């Protein structure tokens, strides 16, 4: 849901790293996003292509790995992972209650880039 601002932040960071390495082009950018980060890969790629147009990153391909979200049930205190966190009404697989589940992992990590020198 906030792909635009993350794409901008990541774009700036990648540009810095590429400049430090005196890269001619950036070929690949690898990200890991938590299932709770609110990042939709397709939407992110869409903005990325617009942002990088006519820059040294214009040929760069984005690889996004989604990690599971770690949740804790407030009712039965059991912990579990889910792959897709688009619905806040997550049912606990142990006690079947909903709306009792939280996790704070909303991380987005820029893992690595591959450049051409």
């Amino acid at each position, binding site marked *: *849901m*906030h792909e635009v*601002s993350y794409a901008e932040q990541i774009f700036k960071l990648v540009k810095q*790293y590429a400049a430090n390495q005196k890269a001619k082009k950036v070929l690949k950018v690898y990200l890991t996003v938590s299932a709770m980060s*609110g990042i939709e890969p397709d939407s992110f790629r869409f903005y990325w292509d617009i942002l990088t147009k006519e820059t040294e990153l214009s040929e760069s391909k984005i690889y996004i790995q989604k990690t599971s979200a770690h949740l804790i049930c*407030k009712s039965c205190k059991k912990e579990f992972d889910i792959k897709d966190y688009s619905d806040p009404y997550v049912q606990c697989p142990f006690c079947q209650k909903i709306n009792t589940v939280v996790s704070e992992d909303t991380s*987005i*990590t820029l893992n690595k880039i591959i450049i051409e*020198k």
Partner: protein
Amino acid sequence: MIMKKTINIEESILDENTNLGHEIRKKLDLAKVFSLNIMASPGAGKTSLITKTIEKLKTRYKIGVIEGDIVPIDVEKIKKMNIPVVLAHTGGSCHLDGVMMLNAFKKLDLDSLDILIVENVGNLVCPASFYLGTHRNVVISSVPEGDDKPFKYQTMFRNSDVVVLNKCDYLEIEQFDTKNFEHGVKLQNKKVKILQTSCRTREGISNWIEWLEEEIKKNLID
């Protein structure tokens, strides 16, 4: 010859914004400014609560406002009250972030202020994820939106310091279960204070002002 090279980075992206938030907080503390980040859905009464606050406090405190928006409609409302106000243009983005705040600071004389009120973009989702360095998070929910909002927008309510239930004059005509609403808020955040206001009838505004002044005092001691 073309040479390919892998550069390992492993840098967290949310952290960058959090670091900017810390930088902002330092600037605010240095200038002795108490700040609020006001978040709500569009139409819940963010600007109305801000103008009511200004009316009540402008003789005792110097107040400044940052408006996170794409058009200057709310900015004009604040300007009419002779209050320094800056439009933090979000460029269509759904929330304010640290960079936008620091840009807005360039057009504000922080040293001349006692209170800075930041009106975030009308949205119950994205603003909750971006720490702005402000001292307190205020979430406004209004009666016509329904009592299920704390259940749907959990992060927003979890990160709040006070929840203002606005348009409480509608409680008589809307099917709004106040107990369910309060239960939803407390599920996310046990300690949070819940206040009822109506910016239209001015009901409860004095309780809001009382809370705000209490928090200003607490912050001075901290």
